[in-house]
């Protein structure tokens, strides 16, 4: 009787362990499947030309996506300029100054904003920055991505500021520092590494967004000087090329996917590594 129950219990244990283990393995293997498939298909089509040349006209093979790579970086820069200061300061407010009720409202709203479908944010940016001037632009695309950066930056900034030990706040204030001086000279520097990581991860998140760019940045087969013209980006190029009926374009779409994933992974892994090297606030 006892022996039977022991066997039952042990096999149940093995069964549960296997199940969770397989699920965990599935998570990892999905990433590596995507990565492997991309490297296989994209790697074949990737060439130096891809990074240096403009897209060829329809019907000609070859060419590259230099304008889309630069365009994506430009859009991300605009997104950072527009979204990061707002998100950063709101995060500081939440962590250091906010009262109970108002903070709750802001936090809740931020989470809601984070959950707004990206295409809706695209429509918003469209009506705000495209309709009035009647043309697509890099600015409109940057605005759409910038809005998406805000909620992620707010929450990560708040979390990293909260992880700074309260003893540091007291220490600075006991020396006669005002609240904002404490934040500016002790708390923010202490959380610097984490905050920068949060911002970079937010940018890496929106780097792959396609939907909000479709009708804001639109796309461009040529270089886009300045900020007020339609601009090409890697995700939109992938979308355009992948649904086109040409084999050469499919090839290039794979290559673009690989480059995009590479950029995001480098940013992601790089910042995480930098963070674990002790850039974050040390708990005393």
């Amino acid at each position, binding site marked *: 009787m006892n022996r039977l129950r022991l066997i039952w219990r042990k096999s149940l244990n093995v069964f549960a362990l296997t199940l969770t283990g397989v699920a965990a393995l599935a998570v990892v293997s999905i990433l590596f499947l995507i990565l492997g498939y991309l490297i296989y298909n994209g790697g074949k089509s990737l060439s130096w030309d891809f990074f240096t040349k403009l897209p060829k006209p329809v019907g000609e093979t070859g060419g590259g996506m230099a304008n889309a790579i630069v365009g994506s970086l430009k859009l991300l820069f605009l997104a950072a300029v527009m979204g990061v200061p707002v998100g950063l300061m709101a995060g500081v407010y939440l962590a250091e100054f906010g009262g109970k009720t108002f903070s709750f409202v802001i936090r809740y709203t931020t989470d809601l904003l984070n959950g707004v479908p990206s295409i809706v944010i695209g429509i918003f940016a469209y009506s705000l920055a495209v309709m009035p001037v009647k043309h697509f632009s890099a600015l409109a695309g940057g605005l759409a991505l910038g809005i998406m950066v805000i909620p992620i930056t707010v929450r990560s900034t708040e979390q990293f500021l909260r992880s700074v*030990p309260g*003893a*540091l*706040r*007291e*220490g*600075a*204030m*006991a*020396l*006669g*520092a*005002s609240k904002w*001086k404490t934040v500016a*000279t*002790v708390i923010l*520097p*202490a959380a610097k590494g984490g905050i920068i990581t949060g911002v970079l991860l937010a940018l890496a998140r929106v780097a792959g967004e396609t939907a909000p760019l479709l009708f804001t940045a639109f796309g461009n087969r040529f270089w886009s000087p300045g900020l007020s013209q339609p601009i090409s980006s890697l995700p939109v190029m992938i979308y355009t090329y992948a649904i086109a009926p040409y084999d050469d374009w499919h090839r290039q779409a794979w290559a673009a996917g690989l480059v995009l994933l590479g950029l995001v992974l480098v940013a992601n892994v790089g910042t995480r590594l930098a963070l674990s090297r002790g850039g974050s*606030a*040390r708990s*005393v």
Partner: protein
Amino acid sequence: MISVSQGGGSTAARLAPQVRINETSPTNSEREAPLRFQISDLNFFYGPKQAVFGLNLKIPKNRVTALIGPSGCGKSTFLRTLNRMNETVRNTRFDGQILLDGQDIREMDVVGLRRRVGMVFQRPNPFPKSIYDNVAYGLRINGYKGRLDDLVEHSLHRAALWEEVKDFLHKSAFALSGGQQQRLCIARALAVDPEVLLLDEPCSALDPVTTAKIEELMFQLKDSCTMVIVTHNMQQAARASDFTAFMLDGKLIEHNETPKLFTTPTDPRTEAYITGRFG
């Protein structure tokens, strides 16, 4: 024992903040030293909960006053009212009067008050900056324009840390040991040359050897600084302080010269506490 005899004196002092109240009374030697702090009828509240009840205490200049009592008796709360640190906690208030050199601390600018009344905390809390920047912090935020190097060195000397750190001033403060960090925090507080140093159980996270160093340091600082120390360690209070105040349940039970309080306590509760029958 602690009668409020300040009526005219405090008004005069308020008009001329730098006047030190200089009372003399042959019956109580604490009155022979000029007073730094004079606390009368202090009640302190965390929201609806009262933590300090009608506390009267005089803290003489350039002496060490120890606050002892069981956990939760309000001694830390009381200490933190002296530089208005409790204001950083929501929903707190106090009534009564606290005079620093005859001036009501509530009428003072809080930044100025905290510059004059420094604080050292239970656990060392150096900023994540270099040793040098830690000491210079208080000077910089107060807009000090003179030569920082000299003052940083002087402060580290005063905290008996200079010899140990002089060769790596620009290394992170976290590289120091716990005891060194605590002395760094003392140096940081001393850099702005405070008249009073509040020490909230400064040795509770330190080993006995380091504790001895800090006590030695307190002894040396007495010439230039008034100190109020909260401690759970009665041997420490007996060794390092000139006056001891015993608190219980938010009330001041007894206050006297340290040797007297420890040898001939007048209140049975004090005797019970210092002989270890409770707390």
